[in-house]
């Protein structure tokens, strides 16, 4: 797409054509007849001049003319007992990536990171990944069984779990395959599809270690925990006891102030901070303490990383430091030259984010961005930095550093070790190319 016409006053943001053009005119634009647009702007300006009797227009209609919402009675309270976003926000929703998976019951719906603020994911926009569809389980019929190397194999109801001491913690969850489509080449257009298997919520629940302590688990032999879901896939993953003993692993029922959504495991899921999402077993029905890893399907046939020597890395779990600029990002159009607030998110499975640097010249020069508080361990951290676009082509990148000193790598550095045929754990620096037209697109630059 070529440049949109500039406003008469330099530096003023111009509305996008779809906001004020007639359908027939929009079809013209879509068909590439851009000369028409310029005349549309000229005509609009001309009309305004004519209407104001060849004088400066007295001001904007939306200010000068009383608007319906200011001159009528609004909706009553509880018109929607469970609130919904504005009807003007319907463009931001979870979406599948066409062709990525073959059946929608074993697929992914990506979060619309391109329009999100701060660090908390609205629960209705939390990404989805199911292996055998999702269920809405009757919580009165849900049980958690803890068995294996514990003194007393025990069954808990939700009533009982929710009586126990609870903690609330903010953590990111990222699918191990997030950005997996980009190991070889650029494949998808927007940050929703490159990075949208990522969400961050406040989770409330019971620390698994407290329950295992209560049941007298075998601290010497019981070095592994098997978590099992109550859905049709009976999802199973091995969790190292080392992580459980850190006190961070939760049996969570709460998410962002309400119960978990069914798509996210209602009424109970495991929260394993810093570790890929597949281990956060949803609809959690069983915890087994054992003395060896379980080599389940999703840690033997899937979620294994193919290395250049043909070996498969098994039990790769930690999500290493990563960041991405969400505004502006791929598939977006800058409306004019001038100031932009470049905004993005950073996270690390090994702790807190220490610093995020941003480059607008493809990585030659970098400036450190402002980190918004709170900066929490194994949670998304929002960063912002001002940037004045001069209208010339640019490449925007962000580079995260975590508290261990680890610096987010470039894709060629990762490929030098892991090759191009891996699927999982791509935490490379993302590049967004800004064309002279203002269109932002996904590229790999290094």
């Amino acid at each position, binding site marked *: 797409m070529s440049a949109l016409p500039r406003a008469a006053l330099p530096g003023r943001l111009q509305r*996008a054509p*779809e*906001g004020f053009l007639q359908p027939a005119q929009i079809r013209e*634009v*879509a068909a590439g007849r851009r000369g028409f647009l310029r005349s549309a702007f000229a005509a609009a300006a001309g009309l305004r001049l004519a209407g104001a009797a060849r004088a400066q227009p007295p001001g904007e209609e939306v200010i000068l003319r009383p608007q319906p919402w200011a001159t009528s009675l609004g909706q009553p309270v509880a018109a929607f007992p469970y609130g919904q976003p504005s009807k*003007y926000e319907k463009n931001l929703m979870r*979406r599948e990536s066409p*062709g990525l998976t*073959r059946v929608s019951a074993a697929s992914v719906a990506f979060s619309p990171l*391109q329009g999100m603020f701060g660090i908390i994911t609205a629960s209705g926009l939390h990404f989805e990944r199911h*292996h*055998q569809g999702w269920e809405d389980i009757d919580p009165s019929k849900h049980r958690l069984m803890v*068995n294996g190397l514990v003194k*007393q*194999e*025990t*069954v808990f109801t939700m009533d*009982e779990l929710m009586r126990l*001491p609870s903690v609330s913690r903010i953590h990111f969850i990222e699918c191990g395959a997030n950005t997996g489509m980009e190991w070889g080449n*650029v*494949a998808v*257009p927007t940050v929703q599809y490159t990075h949208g298997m990522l969400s961050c919520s406040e989770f409330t629940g019971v*620390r698994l*270690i*407290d329950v295992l302590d*209560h049941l*007298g688990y*075998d601290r010497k*032999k019981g070095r*592994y925990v098997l978590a099992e879901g109550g859905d*049709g896939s*009976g999802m*199973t993953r091995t969790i*190292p006891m080392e992580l459980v003993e850190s*006190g961070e692993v939760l049996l969570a029922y709460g998410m962002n102030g309400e119960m978990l959504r069914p798509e996210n495991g209602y009424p109970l899921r495991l929260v394993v901070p810093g570790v890929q999402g597949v281990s956060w077993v949803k609809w959690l029905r069983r915890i087994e303490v054992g*003395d060896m890893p*379980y*080599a389940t*399907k999703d840690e*033997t*046939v899937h979620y294994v990383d193919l290395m250049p020597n*043909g*070996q*498969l*890395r*098994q039990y790769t*779990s930690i999500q290493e430091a990563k960041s991405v600029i969400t505004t*502006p990002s*791929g598939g977006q159009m800058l409306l004019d030259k001038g100031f932009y607030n470049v905004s993005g998110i950073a996270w690390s499975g090994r702790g807190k984010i220490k610093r995020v640097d941003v480059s607008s010249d493809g990585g*030659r020069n*970098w*400036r450190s961005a402002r980190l918004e508080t709170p900066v929490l361990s194994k949670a998304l951290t929002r960063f912002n930095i001002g940037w004045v676009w001069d209208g010339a082509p640019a490449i925007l990148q962000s580079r995260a550093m975590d508290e261990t000193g680890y*610096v987010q790598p470039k894709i060629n550095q*990762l490929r030098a*070790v892991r090759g191009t045929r891996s699927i999982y754990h791509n935490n490379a620096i993302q590049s967004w*190319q800004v064309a002279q037209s203002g269109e932002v*697109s*996904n590229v*790999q630059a*290094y």
Partner: protein
Amino acid sequence: MSRLTEFLHGGLRVCASGCTALLFSVAPPAHAASENVAQVGDWKGIGRAATPAEVRAWDIDVRPDFKGLPKGAGTVARGQEIWESKCATCHGVFGEATHVFTPIAGGVHSEDLKAGHTASLLKPTEARTTVMKLSHVSTLWDYINRAMPWNAPRSLSIDEVYAVTAYVLNLGSVLPDDFTLSNENVAEVQARLPNRDGMTMDHGMWSVKGKPDVRNVACMKGCAVDVKVASVLPEAARPAHGNLADQNRTIGPVRGVVTAAQVAGTAPAVPSQGVAMLQLANKGACLSCHQIETKVVGPAFREVAAKYKGDPKAFATLIAKVKNGGQGIWGAIPMPPAQSLSDEEIGKLVRWVLDGTPQ
């Protein structure tokens, strides 16, 4: 199993069987539980003992050392019968994949059985099949038992799970046609698995303290002198995710790029009949096997409409088939019942198919 010892972390000793009693002593926890969150000990009466029958019902996992594997047996031949009636719909008659799932069998050669590494994993062009990657028989048995068939998990008997496991390994060139797999010989089969030594734990991503693969440096000025754009979004991929203008907010500093002829604001709020019916068909998991024009696993919707044209009983016949499942009209592969659709939805869908799938 020597690989498994790698999992035992830093200085951890494997406790001999005699030390079990020690493990349940009431030593105070030496970990973060001492943060005083729990006040362990005050929880009397919360939770109850699991009964042996309950543990048997739920503790179904089978480990690499075959702990948890129940006694039983199944032949390759029996596995083939089950496969063709319950599995081939999604996985293909030879496990070669369909529109539903990725391939299960293929890519294994006889040398791999000796080597313990599947050589074709090194070939960039080779699709990675389940049997190529599989390092444990237990994984296959456990997963078939817990989650297959996809639309009716846990409906196979123990012996049927053995049979299907045997058949998958037969399709994957691991077991001969006349083989009977049982709990008695499963360890021998493990020793034949092509990729039994194909896994590694030699990485830093299991432990939070692990060593990363790559150490980038946080250079700030004049860093990469020769930046190249190595890959861009292919032009064909630009509109493949729909109109990006419809996927971005309509206020703020940016807009979504227009990547489709149909533009936001002009699209009808209500989807056309065709779109609504396709959404319904997707909800019913019909589109895994049926398309409008082309035969996939099952017949194309247009073929169905042609076959039943003028048949006054067609509407009732097809409703019954969609609701209860069917087999034999279009071939041997059965159609499972559409469990996720209501009667009303099935009626609408069948009417639409018989009407020739109008847009």
